[in-house]
């Protein structure tokens, strides 16, 4: 078993205790467990996998199985990826369409009354985050996890902004800098879960936000993304 898969297995043991029914078959994670007396479906990835077309479809298939076979059962999505897979074959097959399909399945689950909560275990990058955690109704991260769009060196190359200057900006701009704290501030993550993980996940599965997409509101409340909610409301009102 790889180190990443072993860490994921330890996380699952911590969450669900010995003898749970969630298997780590790297890079995929799937199964069912109980948490606080309720059944939970667990779906996810490990080993900081790159999300290619095959992985996206495998995850989508797991989501559809849960929707079909265990209606209404909450889904915990374990997020750990290095972004979308960069390969000619995946592009040839329409990786964007496969990822869109995965998010469509997660959206379908939510509409069919499944609670869908994400948990970033180690890493979520850009299109890989959009494919998974961003398609849940609430996504949390573990302390020490990382969320980013692009590494500083690559961002410097693409934008033409010197890397040193970028790193300076990272310290003051939650809209730009990598890291879970910045994503919490802009409303892209609901929060960081520390302390009693089982209790925190159980709370997250219980918490229902009437707002169909609370991320803009959270970004405003937390001061990290102050324009999005207002601009969207203005357009929605036809002004």
């Amino acid at each position, binding site marked *: 078993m790889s180190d990443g898969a072993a860490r994921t297995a330890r996380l699952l043991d911590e969450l669900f205790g010995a003898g749970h029914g969630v298997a780590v078959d790297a890079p995929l994670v799937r199964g069912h467990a109980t948490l606080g007396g309720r059944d939970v479906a667990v779906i996810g990835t490990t080993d900081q996998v790159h999300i290619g077309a095959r992985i996206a479809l495998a995850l989508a298939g797991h989501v559809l199985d849960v929707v079909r076979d265990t209606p209404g059962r909450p889904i915990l999505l374990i997020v750990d990826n290095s972004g979308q897979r960069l*390969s000619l074959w995946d592009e040839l097959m329409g990786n*964007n369409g496969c990822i869109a399909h995965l998010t469509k399945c997660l959206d379908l689950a939510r509409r069919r009354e499944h609670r869908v909560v994400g948990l970033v275990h180690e890493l979520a990058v850009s299109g890989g985050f959009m494919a998974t955690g961003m398609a849940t109704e609430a996504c949390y991260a573990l302390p020490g996890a990382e969320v980013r*769009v692009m590494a500083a060196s690559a961002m410097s190359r693409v934008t033409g902004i010197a890397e040193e200057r970028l790193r300076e900006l990272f310290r003051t701009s939650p809209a730009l800098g990598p890291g879970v704290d910045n994503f919490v501030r802009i409303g892209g993550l609901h929060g960081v879960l520390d302390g009693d993980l089982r209790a925190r996940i159980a709370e997250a599965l219980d918490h229902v936000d009437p707002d169909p997409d609370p991320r803009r509101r959270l970004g405003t409340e937390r001061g990290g993304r102050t324009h999005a909610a207002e601009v969207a409301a203005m357009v929605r009102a036809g002004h």
Partner: protein
Amino acid sequence: MRPVRRSYDEATARGRIDGLLDAGTFREFCGPTARRSSPHLPALGLPVSFDDGVVVGEGRLDGRPVLIGSQEGGFMGGSVGEVHGAKLTGLLERGLDVEPAAVVLLLDSGGVRLQEANAGLIAMGEIQRAVFRVRAAGVPVIAAIGGRNGCYGGMSIVARSCDWIVVSEQGRLSISGPEVIEAVEGIEEFDAQDRALVWRTMGGKHRRLLGEVDALVENSIEAFRMAVIGWLEQPRPLDLAAVEAEHARLEARLRRFAECRDGLDVWRDLGVERPEEIPELDADAFNAVVASMEERDR
């Protein structure tokens, strides 16, 4: 008299809207006079645009009410930042309130605006969720893809979350750009300078043959207009049966083309008689090939 053909790919965001909608019916929301520009670009010493690179509003198409958004490919590659994304999200959510004949998205984007990367990425998720919500309410969302940037990054995921996609002959739709793949994985994986290869992998004709887009049209605003009109008030189902059917279709695709390394391999496998000629065909000739294949498969 046949009207003058206006190029879609070369038009500006506003030019595309003006040409697509019934004349004089467009009313813009949150336009340049509202001056809602990016709050993040000035800190980087970069110029802003008073519409943040996207035009949104309402109008009529073939006499029917529509909401429409149009990305300006000339401003930072049509990239999605905080304000740009919020305008598209608000537009889609307005679809829940006014139930138009469609929400039409004219996409021309490299994806997330890296200068405000986190805000742009989350905005993508918000746009996409709004697409699903308005679709679930029975309002079709139609994506049109053309222009210099194609449709990449998170925007390519948004596009495939819509009901319908029309693409121009020169349109491209893919998540990762060729340059990024080459930079990370090497030129052996993808030679970004090989434009014909880029086109065979990500171009509109390959996407049409693969079943990723619903129509390919010549590069004219009128052709886009006719395609979009055909889908007004035509939502596609989004229930379990529909999503399962899509799942089966995608799984079959990955199995069938597992050994393909080039668009030509895929087209040959699909039964295109002279795949090497596909890139040279104009839209009419290409669509005749597609029609004959669909006829054969029925």
